[in-house]
């Protein structure tokens, strides 16, 4: 097939390849998706992303209205503006999705993630770890003579930064929740 002169990386046989680049700039968007909390709903959302080749940087889900059986899925994704618009529209047509909000478009929003870090060490490393945790306002939620578990909330960037600092100090294990987000101000999503 050498005669075809196909560039590496552009050999997808799917029609998506035919898309023009209206704007090449990849943007990172945070979407809030309000869904009916029924079996399979998360699989529908995730299947949409994998089936159509969209990115998921982070995804969180929990029921937010126990009586109304509504869950809120927060998805951080990236793509060109056309892809983001397509993702929003594709999410919107899933029957169990009630609403889709692009928080990045709707104005300023607050994004928070919670993470747990297990750090083990002795001596100076241990002291340094707890000093840095204090600076980052991380809480100690478990401790032994050789280890701590820190709990930290913040933007994903803050958590990344904390992880970078903990790594040389004996970082053993990390658990992160993914991003939860709300738009700023008094106005609530309908």
């Amino acid at each position, binding site marked *: 097939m050498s005669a*075809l002169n196909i560039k590496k990386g552009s050999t997808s046989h799917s029609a998506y390849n*035919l898309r023009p680049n209206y704007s090449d700039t990849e943007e990172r968007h945070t979407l809030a998706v309000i869904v009916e909390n029924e079996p399979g709903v998360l699989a529908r959302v995730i299947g949409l992303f994998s089936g159509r080749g969209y990115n998921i940087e982070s995804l969180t889900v929990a029921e937010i209205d126990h009586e109304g059986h509504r869950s809120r899925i927060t998805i951080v994704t990236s793509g060109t503006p056309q892809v983001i618009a*397509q993702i929003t529209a594709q999410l919107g047509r899933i029957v169990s999705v009630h609403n889709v909000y692009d928080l990045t478009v709707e104005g300023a929003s607050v994004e928070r993630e919670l993470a747990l870090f297990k750090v083990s060490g002795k001596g100076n490393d241990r002291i340094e770890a707890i000093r840095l945790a204090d600076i980052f306002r991380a809480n100690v939620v478990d401790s032994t003579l050789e280890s701590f578990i820190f709990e930290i909330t913040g933007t994903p960037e803050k958590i990344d930064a904390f992880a970078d600092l903990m790594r040389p100090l004996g970082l053993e294990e990390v658990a992160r929740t993914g991003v939860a987000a709300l738009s700023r101000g008094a106005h609530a999503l309908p």
Partner: protein
Amino acid sequence: MSNSMTGAKMVVQALIDQGVDTVFGYPGGAVLPIYDEIFQQNHIQHVLVRHEQGAVHAAEGYARSTGKPGVALVTSGPGATNAVTGLTDALMDSIPIIVLTGQVPTFMIGSDAFQEADTVGITRPCTKHNWLVKDTDALSKTLHEAFHVAMSGRPGPVLVDIPKDVQFATGTYQPAKPQASHYQPQVKGDIESITELAKAIETAKRPIFYTGGGVINSGPQASQLLRELVAATGFPVTSTLMGLGAYPASGEAWLGMLGMHGLYEANMSMHDCDLMINIGARFDDRITGTVEHFSPNSKKAHIDIDASSINKVIRVDIPIVGDVAHVLEDLLKVWKSRGRKTDAEGVAKWWKQINEWRAVDCLAFKQTGPNIRPQHAMARLEALTKGHDRYICTEVGQHQMWAAQYLGFEDPNRWMTSGGLGTMGYGHPASIGVQMAHRDALVINVAGEASWLMNMQELGTAIQYRLPVKQFILNNERLGMVRQWQELLHGERYSQSWSEALPDFVKLAEAFGAKGIQCSDPADLDDAIMEMINHDGPVVFDCLVEKHENCFPMIPSGKPHNEMLLANAKTQGAITGTGAVLV
């Protein structure tokens, strides 16, 4: 009527309440209670197909030809997996069908029980929505919701998976309640955008209506409004494969089908237009070719009920989310109230140009030589069946394209074809579904011999239910469309595209109890077709045609619309470079 009943009875009751008269299905262990209920009633006719794929395509044929939802009923495990192709087909072509599957009892789910398959998992990506019902009390509501979802907004296939214990248990039946669902897609278009489109119509010099399956989906009213709009504006109209019949082929403004195998005048007009009005079409890659070259200088409007269809492939200037009939009604109102203006002079000039393209007569062919040319077979079929109450189905391949090019459709819902998925084996069962809905009509499936063999067993169904479907096989003893691409793209290396060891179709028909007709001489063709039409029963017509005929016109993949290949084109290496990766 008491509202307390078994789940199995609820299924039948819900179908009756939803106005269903026909169910296509195949029984098995996990649906026996439902079959027992079907046995004990007379409202719904069950059609026993020969393969579950056939049940789903038959339901599609029924749905497309009536505008009502089609229903299929199959068992768990292999019954459900056999339905997957039909579900995907219906999803791609926006056909409303409801597939009911049996499932192992709830307490055995997850244990790899006999004939257990994760049906909702498998069919999640190939249904519009699906449900596993774990509680008999929730069954009737779910079934009504299934019909609502299949039919509302952009139609599509839905599936309800019903475990056997849920069928046996007793619960409370709830009648259908309109508006009970939160799923209520928007049907009215935004009036500002509609006004913007009306203004664009007033000033366009080279306008074109590009219509699609969405007009058929929207119902007969939409086709009527389209005709009114075309007549009032005098603009030319083309359609996708899926939209044929929305505007009559005999209409003055009709340019024929567009796209890869569309007509020269339609594609040239699409390329050169200054205003493209897309009505219920989805800028499929058979239409656009490479998007950079697609109609480079036009303003584009797009009417579609599914927001995700808009700007998916082609960026449009006037997006209108709504149902075709609703939007066209408003568009006509707005445009009329603004004085019914068009640039008559500009449009007249445009027509002059279009008529020059028409004069190329891209579908012209000569029936010469001893063999029947497939185009000739289609032209004769058209001439001899035109006046009939006629429904056409097709399989997939060259014959499908020739049918689209040479048969004329005057009304919507008369043309059943697998467009998006391109499913060989669709047409035969679809023709059975159509004939079930239209017992006295002339239902013809234009087939290729290879496609037809994929679901030929449904001949048994046709015999059993006395369905006089006509299987019109253009037999070129080749996987013709594949062979054509190998000629164009792979140096005539015809790898595995020979249809070998073919059966004697006449004997095959007779073995099932149907009539078989073979025709190879052009001189006999008319009589043979008449014999087929006049036979009161299923017919398998083996029409032996020229073996290496190519289907033209053709836009080679990777090429713009104004670089079509016409008949007798040099085909060697017609597709090169990056076009070759495209399917």
